[in-house]
């Protein structure tokens, strides 16, 4: 299940896994992955379950199988820290290399990433298709833009129980994607930061298990 939106006069699909699909360009856009976050914390003595990278990548694989994709745009913070890529298991590293061979992968640099990356990936600090630009962190201008970095999440009430889930924030000229990684926390959708970025005008689309809920 996905939600179709019209943005910069293009049809984009907000996917329930947190990615955006742009059919016209056969492109899949992903927010922050933060791979190997668990092993980063293990170094500090917090032995988090070492299954976050596999979880994130399996989710991506499922989405890729379901859609026709040629290009993958990663909006930065692909690894949680500069050495993260070296701690990735052999299997996953192989998968990542294959991914970069089979697809055109745009590897935008984030504030967490280091310089090590798969050879075939295109390593850039910003990227543009038509009139839409892609950044890790939203820039202060009025261009059409897709970005990540902030990991927005929203709290909703279902049957008396409050739950907090990642969400898309969609304004007239900007979209902020939720983090794609399995262990990523976030900033509340109602936070001042977002009010400033969007000039108070934005909609929230919350990711539920298998659907997206638009919060009014």
């Amino acid at each position, binding site marked *: 299940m996905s939600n179709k939106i019209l943005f910069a006069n293009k049809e984009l699909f907000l996917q329930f896994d947190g990615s955006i699909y742009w059919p016209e360009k056969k492109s899949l856009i992903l927010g922050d992955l933060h791979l190997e*976050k668990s092993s980063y914390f293990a170094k500090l*003595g917090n*032995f*988090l*379950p*070492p299954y976050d990278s596999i979880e994130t990548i399996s989710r991506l694989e499922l989405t890729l199988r379901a859609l026709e994709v040629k290009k993958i745009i990663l909006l930065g913070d692909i690894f949680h820290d500069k050495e993260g890529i070296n701690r990735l298991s052999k299997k996953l590293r192989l998968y990542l290399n294959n991914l970069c061979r089979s697809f055109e992968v745009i590897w935008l640099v984030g504030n967490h990433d280091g310089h090590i990356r798969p050879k075939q990936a295109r390593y850039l600090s910003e990227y543009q298709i038509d009139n839409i630009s892609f950044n890790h962190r939203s820039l202060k201008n009025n261009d059409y833009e897709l970005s990540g970095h902030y990991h927005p999440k929203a*709290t909703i009430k279902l049957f008396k129980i409050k739950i907090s889930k990642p969400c898309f924030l969609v304004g007239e000229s900007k979209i902020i994607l939720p983090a794609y990684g399995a*262990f990523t926390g976030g900033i509340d959708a109602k936070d001042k930061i977002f009010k400033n970025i969007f000039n108070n005008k934005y909609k929230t689309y919350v990711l539920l298990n298998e659907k997206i809920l638009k919060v009014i």
Partner: protein
Amino acid sequence: MGNYTHFKLNSTLNDKIQSHPLTDWLKKKKNYYYDYQIQSYKSVCAKKDILINAPTGTGKTLAAFITPIINFKDDVKTGFFTTLYISPIKSLIYDIKRNLETPIQEAKLNIKIESRTGDTSSYHKKKQLKHPPNFLITTPESFALLMSYKNSNQYFLGIKYIIIDELHNIMHTKRGDLLALNLARLSTFSKKAVKIGLSATVSNAQKTLDYFSNSKNKICINPNINKDISISIINSAKSIPWSGHMASYAIEDIYSIIKNHASTIIFVNTRAQSEFIFQSLWKINKFNLNIAIHHGSLDKELRLKIEKKMFKGEINCIVATSSLELGLDWGNVDLVIQVGAPKGIIRIIQRIGRSNHNINKASKAILVPTNRFEYLECLAAKEAIKKNKIEEIPEKIGSLDVLAQHINGVACSQPFDASDLFKQVKKTWPYRNLTRVSFNSVLSFVHNGGYVLKNYKLFSRLKKNKNIFSISNNNFIKRYRMNLGTIVEAEIIPVFLKNKKLGYIEEYFINQLQKDDTFLFAGLILNFQKISQKGVEVIKSNGKHPKIPSYAGGNLPLSSFLAKSVISLIKNYNKFNLPDQILDWLSIQKRESSLPPVDGLLIETFKRNRNNYIVSYTFQGRNANQTLGVLIMQKLEEYNCQPLAFVASDYALAVWSVKKFKNIKKLFNSDLLKNNFNNWLKNTSILKKHFKSVAVISGLIDKKLPGKLKTHKQVNFSSNLIYDVLEKYERNHILIKATRDEALNDMIKFDKLKAFIKKIQHKIRHNELRKISPFAIPIVMEFYSEKISHDKIIRYETDNIEQELIKEAYNVE
């Protein structure tokens, strides 16, 4: 008072006591030892572990310290540090120290006493490590910290006595698990130390003794002192409310009672109640009485100031939550008022014991029920106390997250052999049935995460050399100390009025507020401004209708014993002298429906406003009823009855649906806890809630320090996400097991429900009614009061609903 003992002592011991300056000091004060204090001396001298099981205010402290004081001169020859005293309550620690210092100074005993808690300065702590006092007075957490130091075996080597106070408060809790583990370890280095346990009156003293002592040589000492208690239920001209918990009906009665007493403590069950009562009393304070407030989330300085004033007798009345209920020795309090249901006998006796905290005077207490079922509960408690009946503390087996913390602590202190540590852990009561397999899983979690598919071998917290484990890096010691403890608080943030810190408030509550919303806190009506780096910023408000803060942990569990007592009281209601309104309520219930059976279950069904109601009088406590409610909703869904809502109280549970569920007697069958339950557990957030505390206690993620923003290095993502991934990839991991066990037992009360359903399955009395019954009014009203704010307009509407319900139930036209 010349209560000379008749307890036989041999001449050596007798001489020792008679010739001791403490004895002279007591005599000068026209006092002497009680028999049981002498008995305690005799037993401890004979190296017996003892439990002293007595009400507060009966000289327990002296009974515990008599041996360490009288034998001090001999004891100190083989080690300067002779006595370790542990109490779970911090405020009690200062109190004990003060109480001991008087005789020690006046009898010139030359014993050095020091306390050590989280509040002790780090300079002083360091000094204490080099030069321990003779008597060290501390908390279970500070004790655990001491045990994690490298030389702890040397530090505690020579101690002779270990005193553990307020056992009833700590046993069968996670704090109790931690203490038991550390005591077991301590006894490996100070083998000769005698353990002295103190507890309020409990129903099974032997079990309490076994909890902290596995010595063969041990004895319970029961002073056989029954402190007189005068207890009554408030006599108000106004009618007792049908539902709600705020006791606003009785405020004027309470005020006139406190006016006629020198010093009163008003105990309440939740911090929200304390704020409300405090505020309401000040509104009618025509005589300018000194009324104060005291609860755990007030700022420490504010609290100490109030305690000091109270001690000096400058306060007429203090409104308090459980933060004040234990041990504090304020002789001048002459009345205790309990607002709200007692919930348990041990708790209420403890609270009542605060008044006339002295063995020779009767404690005086007045109970103020806040609604009708609570009236019955108050009466049941009163009867139980009269007959000296007390409930048992529900047992709990040792938690695996606490064990993980302990193993980490042991490693910080010294290398250990896994098999030896396992044997040592098995010696504690909570972990007596621990299997080696579980122990190994916990150990491997502490070692390097204990995950099956991928191990963090590079980052191991412990070094392993054959069977010997030791800490791999000093940074882990620092982190262990920062995270020590078993109390995981809800996330709280400080509240600031200009630059003055008023205390801490739960983050989730503040998140519901918008700018200029008002709420009660620290006895003030405050106007919410914003959350900044500092915390919550507020200004004083002139508003009259604040939103009342609701706090997590406000719901005290109803003890099963008291619940049973309420049912049997209802059955025999005509034997009591009840106020007319309660009498009517019960007799009309009996006429129009029936009274709940003592050994079975009453279910009423009726139709109201086109909805079909099912009300079950389970008396299982709120948590268990909450679980039942969700399960029944699910079942009704399965049968396409279109369930709309449910509401649970301690006593009953109401569910309503669009379509009628026909087979009521099959509602509570064993299915309910099988299919429906597993389904529900998967989709509930309850496991995740428990996982959070398990993750913090076991050391998986870091504790959030109160009021401090997380630093970069702290783990700042939600434990929910970790739970989801761990559950998906490794559902047999020890932390998932620990979470499940804990949630089933604690929140969901699984075993309790299973036993309950089995018991009542074939003893269901179903009354199909044409309208609501008198007993159903409170539970149905609860639904409205849950949703309704204290806005005047809506208040008026609830009054209408209540009137309507009463008219129906009582057959009034």
